[in-house]
């Protein structure tokens, strides 16, 4: 198992380097100078040159990359072109709402999706149809529209949850923290829930038809134990793997929902920086988001390996 984790880490490092390179060179594609883009149309050439010099943009591209990467490895992603704030600090301050939302929603969809998929596959008939219809409906509702609906019903009409904003877990306590996250989590989970429930249904249907189910029955193992110990474990392997694949889309949803619920997260930071042509923050943001994806996938790899010994040798 330790060797497995080390091997996965060894793959993750070059992956991150490549993503870092992509996020750096992406900015190099800007037609004209970033400095000109920041200063706008009214700037004189002289102002542009001065800004370029102060940002280090007059250096050759490769040496810029080397410098940026070297600093990035030390946790320094440079300063924001517009506010002058350290990019690492800005990202670190906004990471908590983003991760809370993404991780809680992923766990929720995984657990509820497994339960729904299992019910659909095992009970069949009406339960199956019900799960399929609700899942299909969930997948068809755009998360931003669902978010607006939830705000209207639960915040404006019923006043059960705050419509917008965020409370720190550390300073404000768990109650306010979670109550600010309930609506965003539901809005974010609806689409993925359908996806995961369908995957779970397929995985359970497959596991239920495997020969070992018959072997276990034939040795006298009761039905419930076959289902909850053996079928559940085998079926969760592909479902957990798919959760990893859909996580990148969950992060996309987080960006959208942070805007609606005005959560002070990385998504809103990115959107602001995009509007302000703040390239250094955008660069750092892409790197941060990719880091989250790689780490989550690492956790998922380890989880599947813990569930299924065949994964460990791959």
């Amino acid at each position, binding site marked *: 198992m330790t060797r497995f984790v080390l091997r996965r880490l060894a793959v993750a490092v070059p992956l991150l380097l490549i993503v870092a390179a992509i996020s750096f060179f992406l900015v190099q594609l800007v037609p004209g100078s970033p400095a000109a883009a920041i200063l706008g149309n009214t700037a004189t050439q002289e102002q542009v040159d001065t800004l370029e010099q102060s940002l280090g943009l007059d250096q050759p591209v490769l040496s810029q990359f080397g410098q940026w990467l070297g600093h990035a490895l030390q946790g320094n992603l440079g300063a924001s072109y517009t506010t002058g704030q350290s990019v690492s600090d800005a990202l670190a301050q906004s990471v908590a709402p983003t991760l809370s939302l993404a991780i809680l929603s992923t766990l929720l969809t995984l657990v509820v999706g497994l339960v729904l998929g299992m019910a659909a596959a095992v009970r069949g008939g009406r339960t199956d149809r019900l799960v399929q219809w609700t899942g299909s409906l969930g997948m068809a509702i755009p998360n931003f529209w669902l978010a607006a609906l939830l705000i209207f019903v639960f915040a404006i009409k019923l006043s059960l949850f705050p419509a917008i904003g965020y409370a720190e877990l550390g300073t404000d306590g768990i109650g306010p923290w979670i109550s600010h996250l309930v609506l965003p989590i539901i809005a974010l989970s609806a689409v993925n829930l359908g996806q995961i429930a369908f995957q779970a249904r397929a995985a359970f249907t497959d596991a239920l038809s495997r020969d070992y189910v018959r072997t276990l029955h034939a040795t006298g193992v009761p039905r419930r134990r076959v289902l909850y110990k053996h079928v559940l474990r085998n079926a969760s392997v592909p479902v957990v793997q798919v959760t990893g694949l859909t996580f990148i*889309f969950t992060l996309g949803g987080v960006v959208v929902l942070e805007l609606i619920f005005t959560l002070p997260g990385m998504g809103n930071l990115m959107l602001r920086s995009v509007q302000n042509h703040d390239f250094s923050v955008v660069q750092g943001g892409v790197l941060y988001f990719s880091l989250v994806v790689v780490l989550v996938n690492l956790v998922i790899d380890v989880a599947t390996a813990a569930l299924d010994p065949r994964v460990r040798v791959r």
Partner: protein
Amino acid sequence: MTTATVPAHGTQGVGEPLAQPGRPRPRGSFATAIRDALHRPAILIALGWVVLVVVSSVLAGVLAPHDPLAQDLDNRLAGPSATYWLGTDELGRDLLSRILHGGGVLLLAALIPVVVAYLLGVPIGMFVGYVGGRADALADFVVNVLFAIPALVVVLAVSVVTDNNLPFMTVVFGVIVSGGIFRLVRASTQASRDLLYVDAARVSGVSRWTILLRHILPNVLGPLIVQGFLLYSGAFLFLTSLSFLGLGFDPQQPSWGQLVFDASAHLDDDPWLMVPIGLVLIATVAALNYLGNSLLATLPTARRARLLTPPRRPVLPPEAAAGTVPEGRRTPAAAEPADTDVPLVVEDLVVSFRTPEGGWQPVVDGVSFAVHRGETLCLVGESGCGKTMTALATLGLLPEGGAAAGSVRLAGRELLDLSEREMAQVRGSQIALISQEPMGALDPCFSVRSQLGDVVKLHRGGSRAEVRRRVHELLRLVGIPNAESVAKSFPHQLSGGMAQRVCIALALAGEPSVLVADEPTTALDPTIQAEILDLLRSLQETLGLALVLVTHDLGVVADIGDVAAVMYAGQVVELAPVDELLAAPRHPYSQGLLDAMPEDAVRGVPLPTVAGMVPLPKDWPGWCRFAARCPLAVDACREGPVPLLAVQADRTSRCIRTDELARSQELATTGVTP
């Protein structure tokens, strides 16, 4: 946002009954399946909605009652009216006109990622899947990188870099999602690369690209179309998100995501704004997803029956419980029910499966036999004769949709009347099963020790140390000397023969008196086959087991059997002691099987086979079921069902021409040709 990297088996198999237990459902071609689907109302509604949306977007300029940008400041946030059918927004612009104008660019732009993903994924996937090696490893790494990229965030970055250039952003999105198409094409190419016809094409000197295009692409076309559809629906949802965020789309022109954004600013004073655009979006995505999933359901898949037992055992209704042959039933039981020397008695067993029409189709039709202590009874016959279903019915382990009637008595106790809970207590401790595919018969997630230990604990209890000791004892009993290390292994680390030994140990863990073995050696190498048969024989002798062995191989019967029940089309056609059966079969089908044994083959002479095929249960005739393939059949054979007839004290045969058969055998042995 939804993606289509893994096919979700959405609408597949809802309430559809299985055509044949345990076998892939026969399916038509992709094209016929699509033609069939077009007759379903839900599909037509979904298709109709998509067409409506596309047409009205194209004709928006003509259809829209107002200029989508014209402001009517006196009618801001007005509800639906005769002038403004769906009401107006905060600047008094007509909502209906804005919706009509707001979908076209989205629908069109969502095509770009699909095209890009195809252009990248298909050729690269085919090439890399065909050549393999380093190119494959490299492409795989690139796809892993793509899967680690948060699509929306990167497209955000691209939007700032390209100054909100929508085509460029969609191309980048297409590149990121092309990994799914790539993997699909590569897997399919790898699978067909080594097929015979591809080999033949390669040998005959056809160029590589011709092979790929002509032979491999058609195989993957169906799944590709489905995947493209789901990808389009995902891209559409993605682009509405972008439009909601105010990216990529001209802020002056209406677009659907932006309409939701505008509406969300007026949740407290005009919630109605949300309704029309929400319904349009949901209906469009739902229709696209539904069409994609219905397409997916048309792809051929092998849907296997569930093997988990139902909480309540299904019961055959009385009219189905009789099977199809009412006469000749009540075959004499071989022994008294309570005779401890005869642990298993099966009488008039009928196994039926539910048909799609709601009726019952028998697959086992009035089978009777008894097994003595220390005796091996072989159920012999070709595939599709009902041997396995007979064996599984004795344990109450029929696949989903199956039910049994008649009588199965274990040590005098009627098993068919037991509830599932009572049956679970009988299984393992009194009657146990060894199945055909040893690798699949073990749960891949648990070690041998854990699986075997669980069963030991279930039947005997005891401390952890006692259980562990018993596990090792059982493993040594089935001829595994290095029990310690095998116990620690996981099923995928075992060889087929080793796995089958573990399965036998599992079956013996509860110390049953009857062992049912369903083709226990078929999946194994010939040398291993002999070892496993030897093991079964010696276990049977030392433990005094009654053994029911299902096989299609008369060699196995000769090797290990005491009594043979030859089965054909759901019935026992001959029941006889094995040595007598092999010396002089009394049913033409037994004779045919015997003639087809490779052991008796003469060099240079083609191996005789029984011409024709076992009829499917639905095609069983109302007379002798073997008549269509029988060299001795006469008109009398087609007059009605043939009962089991006694030919000797301990032999029965379902044939009216046994004398004729005996005569032809005599002629053959004396060497005189008639």
